[in-house]
């Protein structure tokens, strides 16, 4: 069984987000990490590998620096790593990204593709399903449990207050939620192997076939960003110290005052 896991190196948003004057993310000033949903997807693939044997290939499109995220994936137990990087691919939106990643995947054999649900920097949740569309294979999004049964996958798909159980024949694509699992730690020996033993395959524009120049990079991105902002910070709140009944009354008054109820 061959599994491809698509990952993205993203800025760690734990300490807040910083922007350049032009509204784009100031990636240089923020620590880079493997996107959490993608890491859960990788863990899911590695668990399938542990249970039934599989070859796990991690793939990312990004700056040369994204190699670090691939090494981390190798140190966790992935077998192969591919970095798609080229100046002409820069500035890609979800359409250009999914077109490019799908073209890279066409170079590979696979039974299953796992992506994260969404990246914490863009929060679009579009790239995974779009890759599946480009490859003309089924997609099951928001996976909170994955089981392999013969040549099919059975996925618990998160759906508001319930879940759907969806079965699909492979090859197919699954988008993973970070709630899917707790990703394993790298091992020290895995880190040494990732640097000393394993190679990262690097592909540029010319390695990608069946890909229209109009579908890549900034020029091939229909999305135009009007404005980008960090999450709005909540106010400090008000602390009250009354008895229960009095507190409830006070809160009701406040909510009425603000026309919330």
């Amino acid at each position, binding site marked *: 069984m061959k599994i491809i896991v698509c990952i993205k190196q993203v800025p760690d948003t734990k300490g807040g987000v910083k922007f350049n004057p032009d509204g784009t993310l100031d990636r240089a000033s923020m620590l880079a990490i493997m996107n959490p949903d993608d890491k859960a997807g990788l863990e899911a693939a590695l668990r399938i590998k542990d249970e039934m044997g599989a070859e796990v290939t991690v793939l990312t499109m990004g700056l040369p620096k994204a190699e670090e995220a691939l090494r981390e994936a190798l140190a966790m137990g992935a077998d192969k790593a591919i970095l798609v990087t080229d100046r002409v691919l820069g500035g890609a939106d979800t359409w250009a990204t999914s077109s490019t990643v799908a073209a890279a995947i066409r170079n590979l054999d696979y039974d299953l593709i796992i992506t994260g649900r969404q990246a914490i920097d863009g929060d679009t949740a579009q790239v995974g399903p779009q890759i599946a569309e480009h490859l003309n294979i089924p997609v099951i999004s928001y996976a909170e449990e994955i089981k392999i049964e013969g040549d099919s996958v059975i996925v618990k798909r998160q759906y508001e207050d319930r879940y759907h159980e969806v079965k699909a024949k492979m090859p197919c694509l699954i988008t993973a939620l970070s709630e899917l699992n707790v990703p394993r*730690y790298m*091992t020290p*020996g895995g*880190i*040494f192997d*990732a640097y000393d033993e394993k190679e990262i395959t690097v592909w540029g524009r010319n390695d990608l076939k069946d890909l229209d120049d109009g579908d890549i990079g900034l020029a091939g991105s229909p999305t135009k960003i009007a404005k980008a902002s960090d999450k709005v910070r909540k106010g400090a709140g008000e602390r009250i110290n009354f008895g229960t009944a009095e507190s409830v009354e006070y809160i009701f008054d406040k909510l009425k005052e603000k026309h919330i109820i």
Partner: protein
Amino acid sequence: MDFALSKKHEMARSLFKDFAETEVKPLAQEVDETEKFPAETVAKMAKAGFLGIPVPKEYGGQGCDPLTYIMCVEELSKVCGTTGVIVSAHTSLCIDPILTYGTEEQKQKYVAPLAKGEKLGAFALTEPGAGTDAQGAQTKAVLDGDEWVLNGSKCFITNGKVADVYIVIAITSVTEDKRGRKKKNFSAFIVDKGAPGFSFGTKEKKMGIRGSSTYELIFEDCRIPKENLLGPEGKGFPIAMHTLDGGRIGIAAQALGIAEGALERTIEYTKERKQFGRAIAQQQNTQFKLADMATRIEAAKLLVYKAAMAKATQKVYSVEAAKAKLFAAETAMAVTTECVQLFGGYGYIREYDVERMMRDAKITEIYEGTSEVQRMVISGALLK
């Protein structure tokens, strides 16, 4: 001469830091308070490969170098000195001598499960009457047919009772030199928990590293197979000394980690704590103290890493290890004491980590060779 860490070492450090912050730090205070051996953490470390870092892969280890192992002990000790010494005693004092002196059968039988963390290791040299004067040890081993019979007791044994495999140093013969002076000849043995006649005495109640399991070991006609002799008969003392050279680098890393952890917390605290209308970090007294501590820690780190590199490349590294341990341990004690001072009254309260760190620091000046022993080793080499 390049002082920068390689990318793989940087990544290993980020792994150890992440693990320490996520898995170890939240339990550190409880481990100290309850004196409970952190068995769950040890199981997690086993799974993550932390119990066999410098061990070749063919023996179930991670195949990394001593520096990587040292950084693991350092990062763990930044948040919990107890967890740091568990890894250090297991790796340096139990696995290392078997790897260095063991037969192929001993390595296959013992190193593999130890490196995978299926078993935990310990080392027993010290006796009630034999600390710095290790030659004063009384525990004896006599060959009886196909078995060695051990009698005596060992004290202050780290990982005591929780460990499955013990390296035990015992007298196997007494010879006389030309002038008629008696000389004890020691040998090293591998003793399994559960060997007949092997039991545990009292658990020590300690000032610091309180979650570390420190026990007395008792051997009463304890019988172990003949093949559990480690290294040549009569070579136990040099084996023990060489083992301690490696162990000292581990303890130096523990001391370094404790000092770094205390300084990190103190920097945070001095920025928040206000006196005379401003943060105490804005007072020059605080600034100078922080600067001195950071400088001293950096110097200790260079000595510790240099010793780790010496272990990787040199056959003998006693002096490097002694200097690293001496300086790192005294740095840990001085820095944690100063950190408590900067915390003022709060530093004396057990709720604050620096209080625990100051107690944990003290042992690094004592075990695996006191600071005085390190000075003996260093000056001995100078005056040779």
